[in-house]
């Protein structure tokens, strides 16, 4: 036997938003599905083709390709590291200008936010196309594209981390007569540090995957090989490439978890 229950509202009924929101979302999806040509029959027909593709992946790797793969993978990693490092350094000052509680003036705050969202407006791949036509093929346009989008993303994330800072230590440091920049250095950045590190390692992870597709437009990295392998049905290359990307992303993920825990809980934490 079940006991009658009620919601913690004056009427005892669930809040209207809790009912209306899911109903609204489902209604919207049903109404718009034809626009995207989503239908169940097509999905069912796709299953054999997918299985066929998956079957091709289990092939003996092309061992002769491995040294090339390693070199390409290293190039991809290097592109990621350089782009992320440059972006981290550049996004710091922009983030301070784009944080409501650190910005010297509301006009500066709005301008900085606009610059950051403009950088994020286009995906890496599109920026890469722009830079390929500007500086030519190779890893350089890839690095520029990644750094640009990453500054846009990190700048916003850092700014939000700074805005989350407890205002009381800020008042404590202001009260001794510190300058605006000193307040940033002594009260805001120390508080935002765990978030900064968390964002940076998250971005590193994301950028490895970005770097892996930039080769698509000739902007360096493993992507070019991956696309060529797919076009030419060279599954004995495609599989090792996928495994290599998977391994790098996994190892990076583990490392970033450890680093984050260390920064948040202090030295020697598990």
């Amino acid at each position: 036997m079940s006991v009658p229950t009620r919601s913690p509202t004056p009427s005892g009924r669930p809040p209207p938003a809790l009912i209306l929101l899911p109903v609204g979302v489902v209604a919207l999806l049903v109404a718009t599905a034809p626009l995207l040509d989503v239908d169940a029959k097509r999905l069912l027909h796709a299953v054999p083709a997918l299985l066929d593709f998956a079957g091709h992946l289990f092939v003996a790797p092309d061992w002769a390709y491995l040294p090339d793969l390693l070199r390409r993978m290293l190039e991809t990693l290097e592109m990621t590291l350089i782009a992320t490092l440059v972006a981290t350094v550049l996004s710091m000052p922009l983030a301070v200008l784009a944080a409501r509680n650190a910005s010297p003036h509301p006009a500066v705050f709005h301008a900085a936010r606009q610059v950051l969202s403009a950088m994020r407006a286009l995906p890496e791949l599109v920026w890469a196309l722009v830079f390929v036509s500007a500086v030519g093929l190779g890893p350089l346009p890839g690095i520029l594209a990644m750094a640009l989008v990453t500054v846009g993303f990190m700048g916003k994330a850092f700014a939000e981390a700074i805005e989350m800072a407890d205002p009381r230590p800020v008042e404590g440091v202001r009260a001794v007569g510190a300058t605006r920049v000193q307040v940033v250095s002594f009260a805001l950045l120390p508080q935002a540090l765990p978030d900064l590190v968390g964002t940076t390692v998250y971005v590193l992870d994301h950028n490895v995957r970005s770097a892996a597709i930039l080769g698509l437009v000739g902007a360096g990295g493993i992507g070019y090989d991956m696309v060529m392998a797919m076009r030419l049905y060279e599954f004995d290359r495609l599989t090792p490439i996928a495994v290599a990307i998977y391994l790098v992303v996994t190892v990076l993920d583990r490392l970033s978890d450890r680093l984050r825990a260390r920064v948040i809980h202090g030295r020697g934490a598990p």
Partner: protein
Amino acid sequence: MDRPAIGMPATATPSVVLRGVGTRYPGGVTALEPLSLTIPAGQFVALVGASGAGKSTLLRTLNGLVPATSGEVVIDGITLSRSTLRAIRARTGMIFQQFNLVGRLNVMTNVLTGRLSHRRGLASLFHRFPREDFDIAHEALDRVGLTDKAWERADRLSGGQQQRVGIARALAQQPRLILADEPVASLDPGTSIEILDLLAAINRRDGVTIVVSLHQPGYVRRYADRVIGLKRGALAFDGPPEAMDDAMLATLYGADAAATSGRGDVGADA
């Protein structure tokens, strides 16, 4: 006890002079009715009044954390303005109810922030200080009995210890005036006595003027030379602690509070 007499020699520059100082927040809420008063150098002043009476606002107008919207604040003979703000804050320590330390930084760094107003260079932004500042900080930590905690993270300390770090930070400023905003409201009675004893020693030994907001009449009688009472943002009492009787408490806090608090608070009249 060699407590300085109320009213220092007429030639000495008063520590605080307020001439018609009032504060009105944007939106028209008056936090402080225009008031005038003089605090001679070396006085220990208790600021009393119900929550919301304007004690915190008055304290913060003295170092410009809350700008006065009318009147003139003169600290040590210098009129508070945009151009003198940092110089005045440099010599004015402030202690807070919630300590307002930077929890993720170690105790030493928190105390060294007291030196920031004297160190405008780039080095300070990288948390680098000259040896002289470390000597000052060590001495300040010694005064509050926390030498052995210098390298611990501030947020690992107990409330009473954190408040002592707050006092050490103020001492590192080598202040002429210390403002304390309910410094013992978050502490137990035993720790409260320790903190107020420290402030009293700084007042007597170094001749530092102290303005402290307090809720407990027992502490006020024990430590203060002079009591300033605020009610709904206006000056309601100004006199020696002996004159702070039940009738006056009833005016400031309401009749019930006076009847229950009477002459003694727990631990305060021990």
